[in-house]
């Protein structure tokens, strides 16, 4: 039953992610990664194993539906993110809110750092641009998680 529910949520998110337009900040387009938020939800509610496997599956689906040139990159970053975010589950009753937010932010930084390193490698993009993209996407994802936690889904952020 839980699997069906998650699958339905994933399908809805897939539609939103596909139809959602990116917004411009400066010369670059930013688009929130709703699958990463969904992965965060799975990982903090279950454990590292669930996070890793879910991340891998979501990543593979993203790989096959969004791009073909770098097949496997989403599966790789989402698997690692699923594992690291799964750590949250073990300490959800111990960590305070600032630590939880800092940890989530670090996980997102790791996720987007790996992703943009591969995407921008071999291009003319500067390190500053890469850092800007990584930081803003990480921040945006964290804000969306906070909003979701406040209004829609429980991410165990306020529970000790």
């Amino acid at each position, binding site marked *: 039953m839980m699997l069906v529910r998650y699958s339905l949520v994933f399908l809805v998110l897939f539609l939103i992610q596909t139809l959602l337009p990116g917004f411009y900040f400066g010369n670059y387009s930013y688009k929130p990664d709703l699958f990463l938020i969904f992965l965060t939800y799975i990982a903090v509610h279950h454990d590292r194993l669930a996070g890793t496997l879910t991340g891998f599956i979501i990543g593979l689906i993203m790989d096959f539906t969004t791009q073909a040139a*770098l*097949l496997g990159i989403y599966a790789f970053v989402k*698997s690692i993110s699923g594992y690291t975010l799964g750590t949250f589950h073990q300490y959800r009753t111990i960590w305070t809110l600032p630590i939880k937010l800092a940890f989530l932010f670090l996980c997102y930084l790791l996720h987007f750092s790996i992703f943009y390193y*591969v995407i921008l490698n071999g291009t003319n993009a500067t390190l500053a641009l890469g850092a800007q993209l990584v930081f803003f996407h990480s921040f945006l994802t964290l804000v969306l998680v906070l909003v979701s936690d406040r209004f829609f889904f429980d991410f165990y952020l306020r529970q000790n």
Partner: protein
Amino acid sequence: MSLIRLAYLYREVLALVITTVTSLFIFFTNSAPAVRAVQADLAGITNIIFAPQRWYRNILSVKEENRTLQETVVQLTLLNAKLMQYRTENEKLRQMLKFAKESRLDLLPARIINQNLMASVHTLMIDVGKNSGLHADMGVMDVHGIIGKIISVGEKASEVQMITDKNYKISVRVGDSRELGIFSFDQGLLGKIDGIRKTLALKTGAIVYTSGISDIYPADIPVARIVSTRQDENKAFQDISVELLADIHNFDFVFVIKK
């Protein structure tokens, strides 16, 4: 502890390893420029990580490499010496070939196989004999001048009496009037000409040639160069000192004068 139990205990790490390895495998099968750039970066990192190992291996292999290189150096030095020898030999042979083509004489090239300068008779052995139509009393020369004559002939080798032998005499002509004289060896590269009257004016550096009187040597083959002349009142003839033209100390090949 069974493998299954271990796998269950470390299932999270195992899942991470399997998923990351699988995704990386899929990723590196692509040929996009970004993938190649990542591969290049990873190669650079691997290079740095394994640098100490390579350094350690290099240290271990230096001794063996040094020994091998020393052996190679010795071999190459020997080879180089051999090649230098071949070059010298080649130059001599080319010079001889040119001489044989330009000479009016019928010359048969021969290789020196033995040289005996310590015996009472200065001789050398050459590698041609009766099988090449040789017989005793045939003249032998190099590209510069007379060397000697054949004194005995075998089937495939012959013995040559050298011009440096004390008992060796050649009938020669000197000067513009081509006066007859007798050449005999003295010492070193020097010889003397006997029988030339004192009134004959001779120039230092003039060449002495065979006379052609004997059956051994055709006429006008260079023998020696005049070094000095001296008139002694108590002697009937002048003293003429000459220097041999033939390179008697450094030769490998000679010509037998067939006619």
